[in-house]
């Protein structure tokens, strides 16, 4: 069985602290078997006496990580890295971390990994981590749609510079982040240790055979469902959850979600949830970002006695009531 290498994406607006976060993560021994793709070596401030240069775009870090710069296309960079790994020219990394540029929409990067004819047989998507600056983050979220999108699609949020931000401003920003993305676990980089393992590896795919991790994932979803976001009419991006009883016809659900994403994919920033699928004894986890849906995961166990299906959506300008009515109509249930 081929082992798929997870690809993590570190995103965040200009100056949000992506490189600082990466630098901190790279120092952890847990990341020894990781390859990192960045835009410029200069930014990361590596200690040039310790690293070993493989060629002009690639270096070997003291921790054992391979670090390279993206020249041109991302897919070409990942393929080159994969090819060198297969030939034994670089250490056999088991994880790839891609640092995106601050202005980038994360979706094309995710789409490249999942849909590229070569990459999809060797790599799979891991967590998306968004760094948000506690000082300038609120302004960036309000002014730059890219910034709000980066937060909405993230699986993990890291709040940086909280030590220099005003407490009221940080509280306001936290509120905004929870409205955009109610379920992603959040770390305060300046005040608490960052556990590289939780940040990078507890993704939806990794929990398939692990009921303890499944529990954690569910706990995040349930907390999100309870923490009903404050509905603010001045913003288009918002999160909402749908909870429904009984078993779901998986095929009809697939037809519905595919049709929804075909027409409104760019407005469905994120859909994540668990379904009680007809004919399956254990729940199925679905996880999608815009037009892209991860392969559905068959979970090892139910986390509690509740057998209802739960879906959390983060949408840009779509009406939650219309989505709820549509799903009910497709599944043949009263709205």
């Amino acid at each position: 069985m081929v082992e798929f290498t997870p690809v993590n994406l570190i995103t965040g607006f200009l100056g949000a602290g992506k490189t600082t976060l990466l630098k901190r993560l790279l120092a952890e021994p847990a990341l020894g078997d990781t390859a990192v793709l960045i835009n410029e070596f200069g930014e990361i401030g590596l200690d040039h006496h310790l690293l070993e240069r493989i060629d002009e775009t690639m270096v070997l870090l003291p921790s054992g990580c391979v670090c390279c710069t993206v020249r041109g296309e991302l897919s070409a960079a990942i393929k080159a890295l994969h090819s060198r790994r297969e030939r034994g020219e670089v250490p056999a990394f088991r994880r790839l971390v891609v640092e995106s540029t601050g202005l980038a929409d994360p979706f094309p990067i995710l789409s490249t990994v999942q849909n590229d004819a070569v990459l999809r047989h060797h790599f799979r998507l891991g967590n998306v981590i968004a760094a948000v600056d506690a000082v300038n983050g609120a302004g960036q979220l309000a002014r730059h749609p890219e910034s709000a999108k980066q937060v909405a699609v993230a699986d993990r949020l890291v709040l940086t510079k909280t030590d220099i931000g005003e407490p009221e401003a940080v509280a306001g920003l936290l509120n905004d982040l929870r409205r955009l993305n109610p379920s992603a676990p959040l770390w305060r980089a300046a005040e608490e240790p960052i556990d590289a393992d939780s940040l990078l590896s507890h993704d939806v795919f990794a929990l398939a055979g692990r009921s303890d991790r499944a529990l954690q994932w569910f706990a995040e979803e349930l907390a999100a469902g309870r923490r009903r976001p404050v509905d603010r009419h001045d913003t288009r991006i918002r999160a909402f959850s749908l909870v429904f009883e009984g078993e779901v016809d998986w095929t009809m659900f697939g037809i519905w979600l595919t049709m929804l994403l075909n027409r409104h994919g760019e407005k469905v920033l994120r859909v994540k949830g668990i379904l009680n699928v007809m004919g399956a004894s254990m729940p199925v986890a679905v996880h999608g970002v815009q037009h892209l849906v991860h392969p559905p995961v068959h979970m090892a166990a139910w986390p509690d006695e509740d057998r209802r299906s739960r879906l959390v959506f983060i949408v840009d300008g779509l009406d939650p009531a219309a989505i709820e009515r549509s799903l009910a109509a497709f599944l043949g249930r009263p709205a």
Partner: protein
Amino acid sequence: MCALCGVLGGDGHWTDAAARPGVFTRNTDTMQRRRERMHRVSCARRVLGHYRLTLSDWQGASYLLSTATGKTEIVDNLTHLWAAAEKLLGRPCDPLDPALLEYLEPADG
């Protein structure tokens, strides 16, 4: 690549995910795959009926999508289905369209 039609690989749509540990799919063996395709055709027809389109299985590999006047497109998977339906109809197929939802909703609902 398919030698007959020149189509490059499947695109690995999530509803046809390749069977591997942890992945939920009904793409594991021939019988299951066929059963799932039959059911998919019947579910899709329920929705496509609103647009007067019909869908049928083609050789267990693709689907044929046809209008009432016989215009037909070959589609590989569900994503292509909606793009092809919109092309044949010349208008969007929106799952949030109230007219479609009224068509699908139970009469007594």
